[in-house]
């Protein structure tokens, strides 16, 4: 379970405050969507949960299963179960995707005091997950995300999510840059991972993604706060009326 209480965050080197007392809970097994206009702080929220260093938390806390993660570095948060699917996955030239996947899986296992994976088990797990997401084997041998299309990068994010088996998945604008077919594949990948022990926080501009990944709850974010919470019908209402009505609520 992810609990965010009264989170106040600014950009580290500037005076610009992005999150202004944001509170939010995502229960195990819940798919929560955050919708909001550009500049409302959605991506900042995802980065702050994942542990990016460019921000300064002025107040509040982020609890994962009751434990405050704000003091942890990004790698410790990942090992604790937080996974951020990036809006723009980074290209890492010179690092083969397989090498990276193995390093990541084993680093998390080590951090949790588990034994490292044996190579045959690792390869079996990767190939199985890749096949389900329609990722060609040849892509796994290429440097991570280098020269991948937008759709391939997003599928690679979901592959990592499947392999790392996190308890809290944050999807930051996963639909951006995807055509309808790619969107469907990615959504199916996410849906396959829905589990009573796993929570999802799906950040998006558009209702479109939520046709494929149907949320349990929808939160509207504006000016760094959650200004309205409702069921999946709230997304449809936003699609129809836009965000204009929520500007004043913040």
């Amino acid at each position, binding site marked *: 379970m992810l609990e965010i209480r009264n989170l106040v965050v600014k950009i580290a080197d500037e005076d610009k405050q992005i999150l202004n007392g944001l509170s939010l809970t995502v229960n195990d097994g819940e798919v929560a969507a955050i919708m909001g206009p550009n500049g409302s702080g959605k991506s900042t929220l995802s980065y702050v949960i994942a542990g990016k260093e460019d921000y300064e938390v002025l107040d509040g806390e982020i609890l994962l299963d009751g434990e405050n993660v704000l003091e942890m*570095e990004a790698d410790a948060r990942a090992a604790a179960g937080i996974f951020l699917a990036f809006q723009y*996955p980074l290209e890492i030239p010179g690092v083969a995707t397989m090498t990276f996947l193995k390093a*990541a899986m084993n680093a998390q296992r080590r951090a949790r005091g588990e034994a490292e994976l044996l190579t045959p088990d690792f390869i079996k797990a990767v190939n199985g997950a890749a096949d389900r997401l329609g990722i060609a084997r040849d892509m796994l041998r290429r440097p991570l995300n280098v020269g991948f299309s937008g759709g391939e990068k997003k599928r690679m994010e979901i592959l990592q999510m499947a392999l790392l088996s996190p308890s809290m998945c944050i999807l930051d604008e996963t639909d951006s840059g995807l055509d309808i077919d790619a969107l469907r594949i990615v959504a199916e990948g996410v849906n396959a991972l829905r589990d009573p022990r796993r929570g999802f926080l799906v950040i998006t501009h558009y209702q479109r993604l939520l046709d494929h990944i149907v949320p349990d709850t929808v939160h509207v974010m504006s000016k760094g706060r959650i200004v309205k919470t409702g069921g999946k019908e709230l997304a449809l209402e936003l699609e129809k009326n836009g965000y204009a009505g929520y500007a004043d609520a913040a």
Partner: protein
Amino acid sequence: MSIVTPFKTAAEHALSAQFSAAKAELPGSLPVRKLREDAFAGFEAKGLPHRRLESWRYTDLRALLREAKPLAIDASATPAIEARLDELALDGVRLVLIDGAFSAELSTLEALPDGVAIHSLAEALVSGREDLTRVLAGPGIAQGDTGLMLNTALMRDGVFIEIADGTELAQPIAIVSLASGEAERAIFHRSVVVAGQGVKATIFEIGEGVGAEASQINGAIVFETGDESDVQHLRIVTGQAPETVQVQTLMASVGGHAKFESFALVCDAATLRQQYFVEYAGEHSEVGLRGVNLLGGSEHSDVTLVMDHAVPHGVSREMFKTIIGGEATGVFQGKVIVRKYAQKTDGGMRSNTLLLNDGATMFNKPELEIFADDVVCGHGATVAQMDGEQLFYLMARGLPRREAEALVLQAFAGEAVEFVQDESLRGMVMDRIEAWLARRDVAAVAGAV
């Protein structure tokens, strides 16, 4: 430009005295003696290279050599040297130099493949072979370099490798040059590789310090390769005592339709200047000079190269990757000359540097001198910090900071290492890079991220 040398330094005086005292017993036939005398006269006229000479601007040898250490005359195997050789566990032909002197006893020459002849340089120098004198002189562009002149004047030993036409070697020939570090010494060695037509061979040079005392090392290797040959050179310079000052010169004259590639890994090498002088003796040849420099502490590594396209249809590629931490300094000076008749030259030069912290310094000076009008030549030099976004991405997947950094740095260096053709040597290079990254001082890096 005329260089005014107002007075001689203590080291220059000492070198003159050393040459006068040693020249009678330094090995050499009459033509070799003449070569030595001329080189030393050239050195005396100019003195030790210093920062007002453009090509030595960032490595002021005059300032670095406060005194000239005593010449290494002979050396014998110590238990430390034997242990080091065991650790290196090199298969095949292994040629060992201790303080620059060839040791037949420590070398493995039994399994010499057909078509390969090996002599100590000292032996070859007295043999009176005229072709050797020509090869020793090196390419025209190397003339006038005072670091090299000193080597020519004072070279005592090394190896002379001849590979007959058509010979294809399955295994690398290793030249292991160990500085004993038993006492402070000046070491002058040179090796010569003459590869005939159609030869395929890999020469692996490794230079290491064994003991604690600093050395002054001036080494050189000369390649003359035949038409249609494919000669690969790998050099590792490592494990030097902190006060060691070293100049390593590589000269190559490359035949037509041939390939010559050199790769150098520098780590824990104290103060090092590597200089390359390469000329194309025939058309349609391809030369690659690449390297990885891993610097920390107060280390200094200078890569200065001159690529001389004197004939048409030459291809040259240079790629140097430098990672600098601590207060260390890296230097890359690359000059590609394309002479008037060298049409259709294709040259590409790159120097990429990652600075790990504020105290690290890099000097980049790429130069193109193009006199032909139908060529493709480019160069690029970058100096950057590690990419914080990349590191965050890797950490968000669970990699601890150190591991994430190591992965990014390894990949950065790996781009150049990929060009090492021999698989086991490539593995050895990557292992050493990994070991260096694992030892790296994390605290010094934290500020850069």
